[in-house]
């Protein structure tokens, strides 16, 4: 059974200006030990898809559909059911390591809390295991850090504490939401190495949410590309990068400046801007920005269709032929 199986998930937010459709009919599945990369720009719904699964949507958010974690639906589940799973069998790493740690709690207590709660261990035992975990994520002088407060740590160390916390109960699934976006590139490389190690050694499934295609290329086994709350393309990481079939995926890859290529002249761009989620364009949401747009794209919405082994895309146009 898949560790995570999302079926026809929708997320709507009620706002003063009307309803916002953040996630539209998203279906995804993830096997144990697999890393699925979720790529998309701001507002593409990539975070909200998983916040819905964790029961962490804002108060005005309403999810419908199913998020099956190891066969059990988490949408609409009560707090007790969610709390039995969250932090224990699945945990989350957030983008901003400062605001996601409790500022007035020492690192050791924050780390140990989850063990005391889920495993009922003693404080001394929780502290010992916290120390082991800090060492595993390569925090220097781990013993001393246990008694520090989050503000005494650098951004890279804080993010390592977040990862250590996520790993405390050996979860089967980690959701990493832009885990390295706030970090410098040398520190990003260290954090990605730790995530890679966790995935390979502990067989933990990882959802890696990011806008950085380079980060995806290094870690993900499969990739789902999201635009305006929908999955527009999904596939094996190598085939997505080597042979992107959706015009948006192609555009994203083309307009990402690459360090291994000398830039010459103007960069490739995707014209226009991401759509307003309150007033999505008719038909395919990407059609106003698409170079391959046809009349059909303006009226009819393309569904996600299988286009090859482990590949699917939501587009009427064969980009290769066009």
């Amino acid at each position, binding site marked *: 059974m898949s560790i995570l199986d999302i079926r026809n998930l929708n997320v709507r937010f009620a706002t003063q200006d009307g309803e916002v459709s953040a996630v539209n009919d998203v279906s995804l599945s993830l096997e144990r030990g697999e890393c699925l990369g979720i790529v998309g*720009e*701001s507002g593409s719904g990539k975070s909200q898809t998983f916040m819905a699964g964790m029961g962490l949507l804002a108060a005005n958010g309403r999810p419908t559909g199913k998020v099956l974690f190891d066969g059990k639906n988490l949408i609409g589940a009560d707090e007790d059911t969610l709390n039995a799973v969250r932090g224990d069998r699945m945990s989350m790493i957030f983008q901003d390591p400062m605001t996601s740690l409790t500022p007035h709690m020492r690192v050791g207590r924050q780390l140990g809390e989850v063990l005391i709660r889920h495993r009922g261990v003693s404080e001394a035992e929780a502290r010992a295991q916290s120390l082991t975990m800090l060492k595993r994520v390569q925090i*220097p002088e781990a013993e001393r850090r246990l008694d520090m407060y989050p503000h005494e740590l*650098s*951004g*890279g*160390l804080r993010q390592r504490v977040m990862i250590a916390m996520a790993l405390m109960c050996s979860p089967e699934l980690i959701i990493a939401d832009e885990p390295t976006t706030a970090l*410098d*590139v*040398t*520190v*990003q*490389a*260290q954090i*990605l*190495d730790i995530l890679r190690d966790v995935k390979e050694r502990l067989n933990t499934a990882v959802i890696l949410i990011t*806008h*950085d*295609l*380079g*980060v*995806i*290329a*290094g870690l993900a086994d499969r990739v789902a590309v999201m635009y305006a709350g929908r999955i527009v393309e999904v596939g094996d*990481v*190598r085939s997505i*990068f080597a042979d992107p079939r959706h015009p948006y995926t192609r*555009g*994203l*890859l083309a*307009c*990402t*400046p*690459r*360090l*291994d290529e*000398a*830039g010459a002249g*103007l*960069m*490739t*761009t*995707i*014209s226009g*801007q*991401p759509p307003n989620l309150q007033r999505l364009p008719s038909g395919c949401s990407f059609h106003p*920005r698409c170079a391959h747009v046809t009349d059909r794209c303006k009226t009819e919405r393309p569904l996600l269709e299988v286009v090859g082994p482990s590949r699917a895309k939501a587009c009427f146009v064969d980009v290769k032929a066009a």
Partner: protein
Amino acid sequence: MAQSLLQVRDLKVYFPVRTGGVLFGEYTALKAVDGISFDLKSGETLGVVGESGCGKSTLGRAVLQLVPVTAGAVSWLGSDLTQQDKAEIKKCRQELQIVFQDPLASLDPRMTAGDIIAEPLRNYFPQMSSDERKAKVQDIMAKVGLLPAMVNRYPHEFSGGQCQRIGIARAMILRPKLIVCDEPVSALDVSIRAQVINLLMDLQKTFNLSLIFISHDLAVVRHISHRVMVMYLGRVMELAERESLYRTPRHPYTQALLAAVPIPDPDKERAKKRLILTGDPPSPLSPPSGCVFRTRCGKADDTCTSATPVLDAASSGHEVACHHWRNI
């Protein structure tokens, strides 16, 4: 690209920071920029890269005299800005502009796009007729890709990319010779980032602008810059022509920085040589003795602890501050 517009010599910016208690602590100098020199020609882009806290933004602000300069000279067209009074600096600022990182926060939320873009004109040319001002605003809006109808809208009605276009229009309206771009695309989505980079390159060509392009994104800097400066803890580690720097990085820090950037290609990214720096940059309040990079450098030895390396010309136009660059 001939004449040198800007000459920065041994620029130092130290901030006094109280360490060890609010009441009885002592002031320590935080050396944000510590002895930086460079030239900038007209029509040239100098990329400034480095990790957070390396002093790259402070350098940009010091060039524009937006932070107090501790020592050194910033010569703009031959006259030293650090020696001038406020009125003279204000005059020079017509030619020296800045674009900030956060596109929305750098615009006054209660002013319309048109007012924001026109403000430098009101400031420098109060006698200008409103018709002329309107015409100039419309003209620059068209050049940065904003529609005329947007002139009466407020910043919150624009997307991030459009706000950055407003910021660029505001910087461009006085027809400056130099724009300091402080992380201008870091807050933007990938598809919008390329549009703004293209706009800057386009404006540079049209108006023969010089740019100081400050960014932590090494791939973007490679695309837009003619020359690139790599900073670490307030000092220059390496300064070279773009291709020379990216093809043959000489400094161990530049090499590690370049190796750490993920490449959007699964095969290349997974096969590439790992050269991971350990730890975080040290605190700028107590930088290491000798070479500031030595605590994270695999090549460091006793020389690096005792002597501070100076910039050495490795080849024509390629300077590197490392004792051991010949052996790397």
